[in-house]
């Protein structure tokens, strides 16, 4: 028994994507509403049909959205814990809820405005917030600074990028991974983004540009870091039994999994106690195993991969962890042109990803996976029937979902 093929994504909606702060005077709340209404309309549904929220990272407050838009009755409201790692997995939660008869029409969304907050954690505040959240005992706050925070407060690791640099550096050390491979990821995704009207970065990116860019935290330079953006993306999931009556071709949820090894835990956020064998990885291996088992397919059956790319080396490590190449061989696999659109064996981030299209914490990847399955993507992979979309690496859960035609 599983959720395989029990539900499908039938609607996609979004706001425009904006550079950080440029979405004002819209708000995260107003953009969430805009994306939800657009996704329902895309599916041929209305707000009267919506009865569930399966979100991640507490992306919105379902109570406020339901009241604002006049949802007749909320029957399901859950969030996957932690951060962006849950984006793909939230679709699986929606499918499970629908399969269990708990709700019928469920939205998954992210809305983001980096006007007064910056997810990169400007100086100490950002990472201290992660530390506080990871040990805070009450969602109502008041727990203050945990005693564990003093153990890492003065170590100079101030942002997620600093932390991800440590994983990348270890991978380079163990497997002779080179910056040229990270550059190939960035350049490939930029080439994909250039062709898309929605992309925020459309200037060509050369190898020289990459190596001349400002180094932020070795081995990651400016182009290895995601951009900071605003916007909202929402998708609608319904039972597979209902897809015939709707406007768009369905993207069936073939399989979905979230989680990871327990000792991966909060992983990169002031933790780093991951056992050696999983340290230089994306943390996705247990999820990938369950995902392919549930779907009954192999990595070679996947036609396009939308891999969470807040930092370029994490694309490389996910290619290994999802079995597109052996562990440690991600760099050579990329160097051989395998991830390119049009010519590669597994086109990756055909929308440009977080690095070059926009960063809406994973939902742009979900949107692209659906468009690839519909056959309407700007950089359409010919004959695409199965798409992989992932969330994370991050604090658990990380997640993956396979969509199919």
């Amino acid at each position, binding site marked *: 028994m599983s959720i395989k093929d029990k539900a499908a994504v039938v609607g996609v909606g979004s706001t425009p994507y904006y550079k950080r702060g440029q979405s004002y005077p819209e708000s995260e709340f107003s953009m969430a509403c805009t994306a939800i209404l657009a996704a329902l309309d895309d599916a041929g549904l209305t707000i009267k049909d919506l009865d569930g929220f399966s979100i991640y990272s507490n992306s919105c407050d379902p109570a406020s959205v339901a009241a604002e838009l006049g949802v007749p009755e909320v029957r399901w409201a859950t969030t996957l814990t932690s951060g962006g790692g849950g984006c793909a997995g939230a679709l699986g939660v929606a499918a499970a809820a629908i399969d269990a008869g708990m709700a019928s029409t469920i939205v998954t969304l992210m809305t983001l405005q980096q006007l007064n907050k910056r997810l990169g954690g*400007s100086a100490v505040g950002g990472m201290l917030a992660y530390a506080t959240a990871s040990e805070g005992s009450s969602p109502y706050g008041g727990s203050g600074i945990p005693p564990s925070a*003093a153990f890492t407060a003065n170590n100079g690791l101030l942002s997620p990028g600093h932390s991800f640099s440590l994983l990348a550096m270890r991978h380079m050390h163990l497997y002779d991974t080179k910056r040229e491979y990270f550059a190939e990821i960035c350049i490939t995704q930029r080439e994909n983004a250039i062709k898309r009207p929605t992309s925020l970065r459309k200037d060509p990116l050369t190898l020289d540009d990459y190596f001349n860019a400002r180094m932020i935290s070795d081995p990651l330079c400016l182009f290895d870091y995601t951009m900071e953006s605003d916007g909202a993306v929402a998708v609608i999931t319904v039972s597979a039994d209902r897809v015939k009556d709707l406007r768009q071709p369905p993207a069936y949820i073939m399989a979905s999994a979230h989680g990871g090894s327990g000792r991966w835990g909060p992983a990169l956020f002031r933790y780093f*106690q991951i056992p050696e064998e999983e*340290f230089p990885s994306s943390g996705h291996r247990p999820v990938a195993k369950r995902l392919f088992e549930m779907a009954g397919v192999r990595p070679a059956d996947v036609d396009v991969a939308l891999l969470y790319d807040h930092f370029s080396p994490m694309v490389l490590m996910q290619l290994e962890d999802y079995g597109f190449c052996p562990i440690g061989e991600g760099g050579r696999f990329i160097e051989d042109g395998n991830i390119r659109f049009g010519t590669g064996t597994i086109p990756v981030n055909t929308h440009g990803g977080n690095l070059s299209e926009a960063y809406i914490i994973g939902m742009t990847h979900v949107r692209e996976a659906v468009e690839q399955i519909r056959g309407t993507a700007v950089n359409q992979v010919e004959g695409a029937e199965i798409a992989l979309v992932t969330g994370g690496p991050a604090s658990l859960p990380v997640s993956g979902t396979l969509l199919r035609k």
Partner: protein
Amino acid sequence: MTSTYADPRTQPFWDAAKEERLAAPRCTNCGTFRLPPSPYCFVCQHREVEWIELPGTGKIVSYTVIRHPLHPELAAACPYVSGVVDLDGTQGAGARMLVNIIDCDPDKVRIGDAVEIVWEHVNDDMTTPRFRPVRS
């Protein structure tokens, strides 16, 4: 941070730090070290610990050179090195320290390098650990 925000579970670390000694809690049941100190052993779920003095040396598991300041006030500090250290005398993962590595040439630091602890006296409440390369 200029306060340890210690509770009874972490206070022994900071008390030892004031005397420039590295002490870590070890599970009395299975011998697994854990840092930062935490309520339960992740191997055997035992709670009781004994505090063991460690040599204060270790090896770099990974590191990064932070070259671009996240805040203008940090500009003078850049470039600086931060990394993960496996502590000698422990099992490694589960008791690693995430530390600032000082007194080094950022371009010469390598994974696997031997490092030793140096204590920075912040104030009467807090003496904080940093590491530096072991001079051979």
